[in-house]
């Protein structure tokens, strides 16, 4: 059964705490955040993601998904505790944690700010203070992982949206993060680019937290699903269970991917 909770800590432990000596890849405890204009964006968020888990974050626009993601490497700071790979997210840990959490923004034009693909993928490793040889090796590996090796010397503004998305993912893979955080990766892609993105995400052996409206992708890729609405985590459980709870989905403006299929 899905775990539905409102303002208290979930009493059921999230699914994959077992690996790695029970040390989760990410824990968020009691997180509150409001924007300077007074808009409350996060209310008492609790979330724990185990190593190797692939978790989907769904919910209507304005639910707080992106705001939550910006907290995971300290770009926004609310009230509450966040731990990444057992390290508390505090100011002195920020440079290390930013290398451990690979955050990919929704618009690849925001993510890719350097003139060439190579420079963009090298940006993270360079700022981690790695040697030139190591930076080059990592750029090579990251581009190979997303299947874009030949694109290294291309200029970012010459790429298609699908290509930009893959490069955007490579820009964080090159930091060799423990946790990949993606904001609506399949938005705006044509079916072929979407398919190749899904295959890529499936094959990447990384812990993932992915916000999306693409329920079919959630069903296909993510065994666990977290529903957010109005800054709260409303449900957290196995995708299969939550998807079959039509009342729950409808309450949060979501739709089962099979809603139109004959039963």
């Amino acid at each position: 059964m899905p775990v539905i909770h409102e303002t208290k800590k979930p009493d059921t432990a999230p699914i994959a705490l077992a690996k790695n000596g029970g040390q989760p890849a990410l824990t968020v405890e009691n997180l509150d955040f409001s924007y300077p204009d007074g808009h409350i964006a996060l209310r008492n968020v609790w979330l724990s993601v185990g190593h190797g888990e692939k978790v989907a974050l769904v919910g209507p626009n304005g639910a707080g998904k992106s705001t939550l993601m910006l907290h995971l490497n300290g770009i926004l700071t609310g009230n509450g505790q966040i731990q990444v790979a057992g390290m508390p997210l505090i100011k002195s840990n920020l440079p290390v944690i930013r290398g451990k959490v690979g955050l990919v923004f929704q618009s690849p034009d925001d993510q890719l700010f350097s003139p060439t693909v190579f420079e963009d993928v090298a940006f993270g490793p360079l700022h981690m203070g790695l040697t030139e040889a190591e930076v080059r090796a990592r750029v090579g590996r990251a581009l190979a992982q997303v299947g874009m090796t030949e694109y290294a010397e291309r200029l970012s503004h010459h790429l298609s949206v699908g290509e930009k998305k893959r490069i955007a993912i490579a820009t964080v893979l090159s930091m060799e993060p423990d946790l990949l955080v993606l904001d609506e990766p399949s938005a705006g892609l044509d079916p072929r680019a979407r398919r190749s993105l899904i295959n890529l995400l499936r094959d990447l052996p990384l812990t993932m937290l992915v916000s999306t409206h693409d329920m079919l992708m959630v069903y296909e890729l993510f065994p666990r699903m977290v529903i957010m609405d109005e800054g709260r985590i409303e449900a957290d459980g196995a995708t299969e269970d939550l998807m079959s709870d039509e009342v729950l989905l409808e309450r949060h403006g979501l739709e089962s991917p099979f809603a139109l299929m004959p039963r």
Partner: protein
Amino acid sequence: MMMHASTFDRYQAGESLIHRLDPRVKVVVTVLFILSNVLLPDGAWLAFMLAWGMVVVVNLLARLRWDYALKRSFIALPFALAAVTVIFNLPGQTVFTLNLGPWQLTATDACLIRFSSIVIRSWLSVQMAILLTATTQFPDMMHALRHLRVPQLLVAVISFMYRYLFVLADEVMRLLRAREARSARRPGGGGGGTVLWRAKVAGHMVGQLFLRSYDRSDRVYNAMLARGYQGHFLTLNPHVMQAVDWASAGLAVVFMIVVQIVGHVMI
């Protein structure tokens, strides 16, 4: 539809000695060439011809047409008009006189020589700069500037401008298209709205563009922070000076010294 890069990019893809040269050599030689033009005295026609000869040779070495830079240089000529006042304020033999109501403007031969020299200097300099941008990829140029110790912040601003010019131009096109799509007219009727109202719409569009760019700059900065940016730009050095780079730089400098000698000694 995406704005195509060639709208702004002046780079001419090609394989040639000039294309392959270290960008630092190209930047330094271009700057020295401009300096050399500035240092030539007025009316040093032979030296000007030699300098132009260098431009033509670079055109040919870059496997471009001999007049590639010449053709594109006319765009900069209007700026030389700033020097037009020079025509009327040097003492010398009178060539012609203009009567403008209460003013009488007298052009002398010395003035005309100075004016044409200024125009030729800027014209030559613009041609070399055109060749620089035509044979150097933009990222290489940024590396060259960085390694030549141009202030980091300045290089960063230029390189962001280049990256986001295209994004911004796309944004403008979408805004314009959205306006076009709703600029309907009744059959047989004229366009609605006063000129003032139309100006207001245009003004709001400019404001929109600013706000969108401002928001974007926030998101880009976040993306930089997320990947460990702490206030300093770091890049790898992909360029190593080869023998051919040193030789070309040396040859260019020697030639410019010859031009200077010709200009100052044999007017």
